[in-house]
């Protein structure tokens, strides 16, 4: 049985209050950092831990921090990406609702590492309880001297604010998130310059995911080696897996990085809901291409999933059993991306809309064989040519459905109706 790390407080009543958090050892890591570590030493510690970003891209956190210019004259920002909107994902929400101080402590540690004096937590607007609890936790942290001026008696100052999203999936893309904080339409920006060099208000900015930041107090307290020892060495650590869909025991599971998808779905999740058979699993939110049942033995870590043309993403695992219509699922996923496309670049804006129109016809049984070729062509035109990962992800996910389940699409065309509905 794996000892919970990130969720260890979650079952304690009122864990979201600072009293419970402190009683469980909270903010001791911060004290250690401020009194015993230089920022460089802290960055090295996180590098040594091999912690990789939990937002989806899996970039090594310590390395990202290391890119921030050291010039003390430059203002720097830390942003917490709490715009959790990837369908199938609800891990950050649980952290913010149940244990917001864990995230806040992680942020203060991160801000100290990069020399930021201002930090924003970008929380998706629909997460009203997360917003409420985080705001309350910030007040507590200020009161206790974990935020504000001269934190814990040191020279380190940090202001921290919540910025509420307002219902735009694209804000999860880091440059779009920064645009949103700056009060603009959230459209991704050109990189380079990367945010670590020129981010919020033109200043060096680090954007880290909630879960990533929540790992930091534990790394400080238990050491890089401990962290590296959990799961695969190149992408280690405790991991929150969000299990949903056609599964008997949906929920949030904290398990080591790298457990097999089959173990997660069948042992922890109790297998498919109605005792039927699994058709496919989406392993990392709907941007992650689906895996047919035969691929379920894959290890849930960044590299193993990338090797089979999908991704860990947000670890939002959605199970489809044999009653699921892949055409409908593919259509709905594409509709989602089309709805959330910011409209900036041609392939994502125009291409996804076109794909949705075709998929709706296919689902209704009004499709033609050449529509499948056209969908594939569209995926090819969108993938790799979009401005940001949204379009790419949409095309990638759709391609996988077409690749693994082309026969289902063909049946819709040949039957002139959906065989499932």
């Amino acid at each position, binding site marked *: 049985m794996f000892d919970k790390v990130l969720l260890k407080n979650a079952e304690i009543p009122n864990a979201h209050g600072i009293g419970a958090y402190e009683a469980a050892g909270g903010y001791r890591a911060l004290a250690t950092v401020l009194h015993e570590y230089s920022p460089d030493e802290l960055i090295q510690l996180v590098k040594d831990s091999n912690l990789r970003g939990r937002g989806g891209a899996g970039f090594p956190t310590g390395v990202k921090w290391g890119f921030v210019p050291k010039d003390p004259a430059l203002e720097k920002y830390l942003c917490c990406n709490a715009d959790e909107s990837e369908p199938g994902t609800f891990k950050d929400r649980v952290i913010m609702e149940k244990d917001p101080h864990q995230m806040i402590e992680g942020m203060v540690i991160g801000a100290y590492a990069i020399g930021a004096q201002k930090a924003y937590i970008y929380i998706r607007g*629909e997460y009203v309880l997360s917003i409420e609890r985080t705001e309350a936790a910030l007040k507590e942290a200020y009161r206790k001297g974990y935020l504000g001026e001269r934190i814990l008696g040191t020279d380190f100052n940090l202001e921290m604010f919540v910025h509420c999203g307002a219902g735009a999936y694209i804000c999860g893309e880091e440059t779009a998130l920064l645009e949103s904080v700056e009060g603009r*339409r959230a459209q991704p920006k050109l990189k380079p310059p990367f945010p670590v060099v020129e981010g919020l*208000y033109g200043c060096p900015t680090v954007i880290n995911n909630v879960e990533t930041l929540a790992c930091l107090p534990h790394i400080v307290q238990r050491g890089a080696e401990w962290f590296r020892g959990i799961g695969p060495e190149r992408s280690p650590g405790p991991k929150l897996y969000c299990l949903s869909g056609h599964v008997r025991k949906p929920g949030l599971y904290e398990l080591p990085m790298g457990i097999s998808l089959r173990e997660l779905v069948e042992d922890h999740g109790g297998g498919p809901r109605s005792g039927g058979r699994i058709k496919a699993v989406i392993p990392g939110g709907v941007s992650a291409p689906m895996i047919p049942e035969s691929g379920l033995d894959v290890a849930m870590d960044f590299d193993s999933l990338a090797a089979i043309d999908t991704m860990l993403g947000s670890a939002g695992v959605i199970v489809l059993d044999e009653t699921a219509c892949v055409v409908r*699922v593919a259509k709905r996923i594409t509709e989602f991306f089309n709805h959330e496309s910011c409209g900036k670049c041609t392939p994502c804006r125009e291409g996804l809309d076109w794909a949705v129109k075709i998929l709706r016809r296919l689902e209704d049984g009004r499709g033609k064989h050449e529509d499948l070729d056209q969908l594939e062509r569209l995926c090819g035109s969108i993938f790799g040519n979009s401005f940001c990962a949204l379009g790419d992800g949409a095309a990638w996910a759709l391609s996988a459905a077409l690749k693994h389940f082309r026969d289902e699409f063909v049946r819709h065309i040949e039957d002139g109706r959906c065989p499932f509905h």
Partner: protein
Amino acid sequence: MATGLRDKIEEVAGRYPNRRSAIMPALYLAQAEHAQLSGEVLLEVADILDVPEIWVYELATFYDMFHTEPVGTFHIQVCTNISCLLLEAEGIVAHLESRLGIERGDTTPDGLFTLSTAECLGSCDTAPVMQVNYAFHENLSERRIDEILENLRGAVGE
């Protein structure tokens, strides 16, 4: 417009190095006060923040949670994304449509309910889910829906 709104907006504006950043929080505050972000409200926000009107208009229309059109007293948003879809969210929407006598996207003539479909609400393990004015209702069934609607109507009746 109440001076209260101006003060509240000034307070949030202090969190950012420039006033443009405060447009989103200001729109939330204005929406809480006026329910709907009419052109007049948007102009007021622009005036308070001293930013070009178009910036306010851009954000009010870009983000789904800002309403430039009127919404009902109870805004029901049903998640129809994959996890909920797999657990028959479409049936939930259809049930709501028949109980409310409106189609998705519409508001009941008495202005009480607006029914929308929503993208993933981040509560996939308790699918199907919906929000009523951002309060979550989970593990929905037709019976649960009927109870919820009854409670909401009752709340107004009092």
